[in-house]
């Protein structure tokens, strides 16, 4: 860098790379724009992604900048969108498809499960499909039915897919760029209630983030670990702040990537704290939390002071908007779970019991 004294040049550069408040939606939009500018094989397709810029405006301006051939409004048919994306990928393109809402992605399941997830395997590596399937997911936006599903468990249960979900503005950009660049198909779950969350971020010099497959400790703590992802990360951070009043110092692990799963970071945290609560919006039964709790138990059994607990959505169809607050895991429900982590039996904090000679 120059140490020139003229000042104006430096100021201009500063403005260019300055971090200023940006939304997750802006970061996602920028990620696609930069990917399209750098790689002419990147094509965006979906419903209303063109002139409208997507119902959440995530593809805003892409058709204007790159033309209809690069950012294409498709007929309204999700299996057709993903199915044609498969053919485009077979011919060397790198499609990024938008599913308008979580529950509207279901018609594309057969393409996703039978072809997208398996094509590399079926062809012994000859025909990888570098497709990114963007799915706005989760609740908390007052959406009427079929607009608030947490569908991650379906994708996680399908070998061959990567399942990624950002919780921060920086990750929204970094993970989406990584997903588009990946030679594997990535289901990219966008927590729609975080679309308008803000953070200081520079679109001209986005900060590098950890690769797909790595979790991040968002808040270091010593009492217990909250394992979470996507829309529940801010909830857990808020819960951790509130927990300080109760005397708990909670660690918050943001998984970022559900597949591949970062056992290492999660288990290192749980081994340090000895307690874990998994938090997500998806229904508990058969949900991601069961898998995560099992993985922690299998790997950290001797470090655990209490069973791994789950705070999840109820085992009900996603409720109508006027009732959704009762369904979504909130700060109080997280703190209640933390309170149930068998603190009363912790022997290390009661040396008198230890002196008694029995453990």
């Amino acid at each position, binding site marked *: 860098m120059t140490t020139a004294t003229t000042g104006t040049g430096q100021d201009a550069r500063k403005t260019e790379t300055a971090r200023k408040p940006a939304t997750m939606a802006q970061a996602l939009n920028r990620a696609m724009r930069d990917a399209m500018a750098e790689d002419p094989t990147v*094509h965006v397709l979906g419903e209303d992604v063109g002139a409208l810029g997507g119902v959440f405006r995530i593809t805003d301006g892409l058709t204007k900048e790159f033309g209809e*051939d690069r950012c294409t409004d*498709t*007929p309204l*048919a999700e*299996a*057709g969108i*993903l*199915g*044609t*994306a*498969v*053919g*485009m*990928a*077979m*011919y*060397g*393109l790198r499609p990024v498809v938008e599913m308008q809402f979580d529950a509207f992605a279901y*018609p594309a399941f*057969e*393409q996703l499960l*039978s*072809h997208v997830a*398996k*094509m*590399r*395997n*079926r*062809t*012994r*590596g*000859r*025909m*990888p499909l570098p497709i990114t399937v963007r799915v706005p997911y989760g609740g908390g936006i007052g959406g009427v039915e079929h607009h608030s599903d947490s569908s991650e468990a379906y994708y996680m249960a399908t*070998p*061959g897919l*990567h399942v990624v979900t950002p919780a921060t503005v920086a990750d929204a950009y970094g993970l989406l760029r990584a997903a588009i660049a*990946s*030679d*594997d198909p990535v289901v990219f779950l966008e927590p729609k209630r975080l679309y308008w969350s803000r953070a200081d971020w520079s679109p001209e010099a986005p900060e590098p983030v950890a690769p797909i*497959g790595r979790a991040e400790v968002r808040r270091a703590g010593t009492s217990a670990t909250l394992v979470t992802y996507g829309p529940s990360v801010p909830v857990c951070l808020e819960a951790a702040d509130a927990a300080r009043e109760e005397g708990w110092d909670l660690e918050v692990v943001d998984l970022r990537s559900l*597949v*591949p*799963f970062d*056992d*290492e970071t999660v288990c290192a945290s749980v081994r340090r704290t000895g307690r874990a609560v998994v938090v997500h919006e998806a229904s508990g039964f058969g949900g991601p939390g069961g898998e995560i709790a099992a993985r922690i138990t299998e790997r950290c059994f001797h470090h655990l002071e209490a069973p791994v607990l789950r705070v999840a959505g109820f085992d009900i169809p996603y409720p109508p908007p006027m009732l959704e607050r009762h369904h979504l895991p909130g700060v109080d429900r997280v703190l209640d779970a933390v309170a149930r982590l068998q603190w009363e039996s912790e022997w290390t904090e009661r040396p008198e019991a230890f002196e008694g000679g029995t453990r």
Partner: protein
Amino acid sequence: MTVLEQPGAYRPAPPPAWRPRTDPAPLLPDREPYRLLGTGAELDPTLLRTLHGHLVRGRRYNRQATALTKQGRLAVYPSSTGQEACEVAAALVLEERDWLFPSYRDTLAAVARGMDPVEALGLLRGDWHTGYDPYEHRVAPLSTPLATHLPHAVGLAHAARLKGDDVVALAMVGDGGTSEGDFHEALNFAAVWRTPTVFLVQNNGFAISVPLAKQTAAPSLAHKAVGYGIPGRLVDGNDVAAVHQVLSEAVERARRGEGPTLVEAITYRLDAHTNADDATRYRDDAEVETWREHDPVELLEREMTARGLLDEATRERAHEEAEEMAARLRARMNEDPVLDPMDLFDHVYAEKTTQLREQAERLRAELAAEGAEENGEGDER
């Protein structure tokens, strides 16, 4: 005061004149399945000889593959006996740079395109899901889920056109497959994007056991094209010259940038759905016999004999070549494929995940223990 309170002051504008966005008449399929054999039409003798060689080998290939299921060398074989004209023509109308999208019944089309039959049968042998490198002959993996490969053909053709490449994709599906949603979505996308795609429906009368009457109420499957704004063609699927011509025209049309075509070829599955099926439960032998009279191989041989294009020596040579092909296939399929269980983890992702590496190690240990037991070392444990 509103206009409604002022009688006579408000004249509703007449609605804009309506007319169909596309004139449906030119899209309508032929009233009768298009035929060439037996019509006295002018036909290229060289093409007929080529088609004949392929049909004879194709029939023998079907018989051999069915026999291999009985010998346990194929897990299953969905035969295209009786449908060879469609299989062969679909392969021969394409240029090398074009792409073929077969369904599970279409291994013969892949073979006719030049693929090693052992590779084409890999899926059905059970040692590899696809069995071949799709890029070698530009043949997509055989699709078992019905019609799901049709949007792939559309997407590939679309991508080729975006890149400025002169490539056509031909996708094959059965009558049953036309009921699937992906059939509809593929035709609609192809029509809207005007992709260079040809859809060949082999209407062989049955979706396993369910006859066409229980599948559709459409006037013909070719008529479905009109709803998408693309032309439908109806052809006698056992008349190899006619299928070849209709598909050639559709391919050329696609190549000229005029968009997709739907071709319905009326044919008949002479064998059961697969070796595991019992066709006597849902159809009469008498019906099968009528179709034997309209057999694609015999139709062509009759025509060529009448035209003096097929003497006994030529016919015998074609059948001898077919026997040789069958013998080679038999011999090679009788060799056990060499399989490495550790391959199971190789192509799930570009790079193995930590979890897959752990699972691979577990399997490796199991295999080592198995090996040790087989070597008599097991007793020591």
